């Protein structure tokens, strides 16, 4: 076996794994926060994510058409598309909750779930419709920004594209800010209080509806950022692109312990890493018997194993409450 090949590609495999892992982690946060507060799986979250990807693409495409793509520093460009994608996805997520979930508060658990699946389909086709009318196409490709593809050496003769580093840095930054927000601020504490006991939170003067909106706002913003970063990293998107990353991010949330914010990050990173390692090494290690296309089978097998031994997820509830 070509050990030198294995070793030579290892650093870039790790970087790719991190990139994917952080994207999953950011999407997973949306699932996990909403689940934590409402015990509901927001199936429309994958479309909130894709909306972010489309917003990023549109901004870049419009700037390209206007010849202004080079006017901004690439880093500023990235900041603009990520921030606008966050804003649009956040507003969309809040609107979805208001329109499709809030009226169903108090209904049996399956009802909002079905509503969420409906919203998911609706948004996919709404994006398709809008793009078809506007561009006569609904597969979009992110314009090439050369700076993003420049490779820089991280150690010795190992180099990785700048965009990968940017994705990792940007998501790491956002995850840190979010963690501090949830754990250290008054509003973050109120969200955790609502997650635990809505009626008691209301009795303490907390506006429960507003905290639920805030939860969707944050989850949506993270999803939108993930969408734009996903687009920059992988290039081509369509209205149905969200499905697979969505399922995987949801899995990551469960893996980390659904409802648990740090868990979503750990779950996302573990899943992204496993998947990338499998894609890069399975073929080499099995002499070609299992190719990269088996990566999901490998990743999900590990996942099932982990959940068999830790059914509440890696960081799932450990503290038991007294009644």
């Amino acid at each position, binding site marked *: 076996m070509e050990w030198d090949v294995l070793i030579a590609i290892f650093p870039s495999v790790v970087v790719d794994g991190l990139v994917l892992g952080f994207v999953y982690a950011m999407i997973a946060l949306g699932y996990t926060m909403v689940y934590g507060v409402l015990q509901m799986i927001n199936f429309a979250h994958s479309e909130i994510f894709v909306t972010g990807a489309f917003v990023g693409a549109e901004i870049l495409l419009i700037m390209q058409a206007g010849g202004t793509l080079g006017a901004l520093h690439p880093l500023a460009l990235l900041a603009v598309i990520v921030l606008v994608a966050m804003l649009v996805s956040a507003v969309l997520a809040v609107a979805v909750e208001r329109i499709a979930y809030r009226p169903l508060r108090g209904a049996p658990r399956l009802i909002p779930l079905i509503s969420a699946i409906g919203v998911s389909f609706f948004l996919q086709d709404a994006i398709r419709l809008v793009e078809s009318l506007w561009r006569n196409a609904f597969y979009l490709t992110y314009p090439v920004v050369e700076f993003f593809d420049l490779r820089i050496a991280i150690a010795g003769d190992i180099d990785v594209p700048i965009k990968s580093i940017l994705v990792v840095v940007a998501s790491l930054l956002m995850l840190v800010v979010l963690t501090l927000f949830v754990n250290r601020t*008054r509003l973050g*504490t*109120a969200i*955790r*209080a609502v997650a*635990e*006991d809505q*009626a*008691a*939170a*209301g*009795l*303490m*003067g*907390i*506006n*429960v509806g507003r905290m639920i909106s805030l939860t969707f706002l944050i989850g949506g913003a993270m999803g939108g950022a993930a969408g734009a970063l996903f687009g920059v990293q992988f290039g081509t998107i369509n209205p149905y692109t969200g499905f697979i990353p969505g399922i995987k991010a949801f899995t990551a949330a469960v893996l980390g312990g659904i409802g648990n914010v740090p868990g979503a990050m750990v779950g996302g990173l573990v899943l992204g890493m496993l998947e990338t390692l499998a894609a890069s090494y399975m073929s080499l290690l099995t002499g070609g018997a299992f190719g990269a296309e088996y990566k999901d089978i490998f990743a999900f097998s590990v996942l099932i194993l982990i959940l068999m031994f830790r059914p509440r997820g890696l960081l799932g509830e450990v*503290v*038991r*409450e*007294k009644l």
Partner: protein
Amino acid sequence: MALLEVQDLHVYYGHIHALKGISVAVEAGEIVTLIGANGAGKSTTLNAISGLLRPRQGRVLLGGQDLAAYPPHEIVGRGVVQVPEGRRIFGRLTVRENLEMGAFRRTDRAAIEEDLERVFALFPRLRERLQQVAGTLSGGEQQMLAIGRGLMTRPTLLLLDEPSMGLAPVLVEQIFETIRQINAAGTTILLVEQNAFMALEIAHRGYVLQTGEIALAGTARELQANEEVRRAYLGG
């Protein structure tokens, strides 16, 4: 005009007619107790006052103003806070965070600090355990935290739902003494209790609730002397 006036309140759970037209008044500065057997409708009454339940008929007036239009958090904003049955503290939050959630609507930093000190004066145990996760407190400590958290809203009217439930006799004495102190410091109290004996000891007036209706009302002395009350609630 009474601080709180509940007028002819009817509350239903589906088809169950839980409150059948009850009227209760609480004057500013009083401790009024609502006693009654399990299922009489005591918690239902408090939840209707707090806006968690919507009455089908009747009114809840605070200082003459109808509370019907307000959601629970705004009723807290108007100075009425409930310490619910079973404590309902936030078990995954720390003691400090629980207390902070009581002060959620407030922005008067200095006054919040003052109130925190006041809570610690009533319950010194809480100060020692500020960083502890609330779910790991003992039952008595949780009750202290629940009351402390409610006080952090700086209420004019405190609704207490069975604060002595599940506590050891020594602690029960202590909790009732604390309630008396809170009242002496200027907070009006509506106290729901199973422990009618203790409740009537500290209350000014009381109401006896029976299957959704007010069966008796009077001063605490009158109720303590009443034959029926003695037989049904005071064990002789």
